[in-house]
């Protein structure tokens, strides 16, 4: 039996490797684009490729990156989550409510704020999986609800964490002083590792792909699609909560009126990273690269003194090129 087995595996190794490489191509392309863009800016301006600027780029990736990690799961199921931007603002406000208004210690307030994000995701999940609302509509509604609640709860005024230096250190402190890396970057790395583990090594991840690939067949295979969808939207909500903590820690305040627009940047990062909006396909490493491409572009264009308005135009074009390249590749395959 053993010999039979190893023979079968040996014979198929090469074909498998080629197939796997083809599946990774979009990620390789995204990674190659990242390198090309980075090299371009390095030649264009010598202030770009410095250690401190690279740290800067990583630091500015944290919020979009964290949102994009969670929403990668939702998009792989073939869904979408538009509520993560304003949901993040609401979680930031709740963090302020827990820590500043209620005076809870940071170590309790932060998990509560993250769990609040999970609650937002849970409601999204129930709306999508139980009420069968289209994800676009369910999360569009949640986007408005979250924005409104953030303003109502905070009385439309920012909540400042000035008296909680420990909270601000979550983002700007440096756990390892020698490296000069802000904690926020470490949080993003940890979040990405956890997301990557969940997506590639657990049932949750396997069923995320399975639902996006063929939802009816997944249900026929005896999998409780409804339950898993609820779990997946809740997970995206937890990442939204984490993003809310990270953005308010960085700013030193919870800004209730912000958030709108972040969801589209996060979705852009996911899509640039090769995750298909049609579902079934995508990866965490791709999403991280996608988020980095957006940050590098923003940072590089800024250093080259290109106005903010043009940065958006260029980002838009990058999305078109990235998705079109993916479609062409798929047709050829």
């Amino acid at each position, binding site marked *: *039996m053993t010999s*039979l*087995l190893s023979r*079968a*595996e040996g014979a*198929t190794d090469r*074909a*498998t490797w080629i*197939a*796997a490489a083809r*599946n990774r191509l979009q990620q390789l392309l995204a990674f190659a684009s990242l390198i090309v863009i980075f090299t371009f800016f390095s030649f264009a301006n010598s202030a770009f490729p410095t250690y401190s600027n690279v740290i800067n780029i990583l630091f500015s990736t944290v919020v979009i990156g964290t949102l994009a990690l969670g929403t990668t799961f939702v998009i792989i199921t073939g869904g979408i989550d538009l509520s993560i931007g304003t949901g993040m603002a609401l979680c930031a406000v709740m963090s302020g409510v827990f820590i500043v208004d209620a005076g809870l210690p940071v170590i309790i307030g932060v998990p509560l704020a993250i769990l609040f994000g999970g609650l937002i995701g849970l409601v999204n999940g129930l709306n999508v999986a139980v009420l069968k609302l289209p994800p676009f509509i369910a999360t569009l509604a949640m986007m408005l609800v979250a924005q409104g609640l953030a303003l109502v709860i905070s009385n439309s005024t920012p909540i400042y964490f000035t008296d909680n230096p420990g909270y601000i250190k979550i983002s700007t402190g440096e756990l390892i002083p020698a490296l000069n890396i802000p904690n926020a970057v470490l949080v993003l790395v940890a979040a990405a590792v956890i997301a990557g583990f969940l997506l590639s*090594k*657990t*049932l949750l*991840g*396997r069923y995320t*792909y*399975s639902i*996006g*690939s*063929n939802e*009816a*067949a*997944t*249900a*026929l*295979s*005896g*999998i409780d699609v409804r339950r898993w969808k609820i779990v997946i939207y809740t997970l995206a909500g937890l990442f939204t909560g984490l993003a809310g903590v990270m953005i308010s820690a960085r700013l030193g305040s919870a800004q209730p009126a912000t958030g709108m627009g972040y969801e589209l940047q996060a979705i852009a990062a996911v899509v640039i990273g090769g995750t298909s909006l049609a579902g*079934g*396909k995508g990866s965490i490493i791709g999403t991280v690269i996608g988020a980095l491409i957006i940050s590098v572009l923003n940072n590089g264009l800024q250093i080259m003194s290109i106005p903010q308005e043009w940065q958006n135009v260029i980002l838009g074009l990058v999305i078109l090129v990235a998705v079109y390249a993916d479609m062409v590749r798929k047709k050829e395959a």
Partner: protein
Amino acid sequence: MNDANGYLLEVEGVRKAFPGVLALDDMHINLRYGEVLALVGENGAGKSTLMKLLSGIYVPDAGSFRLQGQPFTPENPKHALESGISIIHQEFNLMPHLTVAQNIYIGREPRRGLVLSDRELNRRAAELVDRLGLPLDIRATVSDLTVANQQMVEIAKALSYDARVLIMDEPTAALNDAEVRTLHGLIRRFIREDTGVIYISHRMDELKAIAGRITVIRDGRYVGTLDTAKTGMREVITLMVGRTLTSDARPVDVRDGRETVLDVDGLSTKELLRDVSFTLGKGEILGFAGLMGAGRTEVARALVGADKASGGTIRVHGRQVRIHTPAEAAELGIGYLSEDRKQLGLLLEHDVSENITLPSLRERFSRWGLVDRLMARRAAKEVADRLTIKTPSIRQTTKFLSGGNQQKVVIAKWLVKDCDILIFDEPTRGIDVGAKEEIYALLNSLAQQGKAIIMISSELPEVLRMSHRIVVMTEGRVSGILSADEATQESVMHLATLRPNENPEDAAELGLLDLHSTEPKAV
């Protein structure tokens, strides 16, 4: 045998009705231990409803199932699987983005605590595939596999559940002969004293090769069970089509020597169609018959440019044309009336007049991009009256019309557009009997006015009573073209189910040799 009555699976008097349709009534099936039982019936005979009942997706209105002599009430697909009933549906239930191993063990992933063990998963899958002797790479992504290999994945998945009863719905529809032999080998190895297979197929040649008995169903009812060894093909097919014609009407105005309006030669597509050739004359009704998946609709879609053709030439009025989109087809006077009226033929939320004038708005009812609504409505009213569309007003929202009248609206669209070649795909599907007669009368009068008509239909009696000639299709090919004189339920059914050059004996029994040429012998 294993218990008193010796049946592995029994279907006893099962009935299932849907609004407006009695899908199954008093259905009986007895599957013995260790046998392959073939289940045959025309399109719509109730086979897929039966499978959905057995997997617990539907609940029967009456009757019951017995599994190994015990009452069996499937609750959901998982329960059916775990009870030992594995069903391989015609439409694959695979996740194309996952690997072969991941698909086989979906829902039963081996893991250690939270972490999936892909090593164990692949080991089990490799062992299973090895044991079954399947040529599958368990790490390959399913979307990269051929259709035949995807079928193998389905089978491996079904057998991995320790199935006792395996139900296969048209398992060979997409397979070539070598693949069919592999499949039959698998089935023979699966059959033991305590297992059984229900094999749904239309291919008579295969049934002889694999099945011990054949159960025939028709219109949702049990008709009879025959011993394959003692049964001729003629007998099976007679039972299958046994229904008498709804009326004795025959096609009108049948004659030769019509002026050729459309000449299709060697039409092929990448997916299905192979070398489809036929001609269509002025004032002629050309029927297209064949079983589900034979490629009738695909011919129409390739013809009007809705699907991409990979080869062949099309001549309209003797001039060679290239058609890339339905819009170009319409410019040439070819109108396609889709089988899926509601999805593809009508804007249900819009009114009758808007629907009728939609295709011709640009040429006939607009100037400088502005729509002349009054003129459009007047034209719509005129054609609606001519076709006797029953509607309180042409401003009525289309979704409130009956099925027959909706179909007339679709026809009206193409009349206003002045098409002289009309392709009707299932023109009477979902329409009640009275309205059908009206549609038939309308088709006849259109033909008499000189329109050239292609009528695609799954209802054989309808094709027979309307068509001047009948093109019969099998597996993307034209298996024969019958004149109105030659065409009977039997001759059409034989052409649709047989591959005569591969089964000379059956073909000879039926007097149907040489049918791969397009000049068939009379039956």
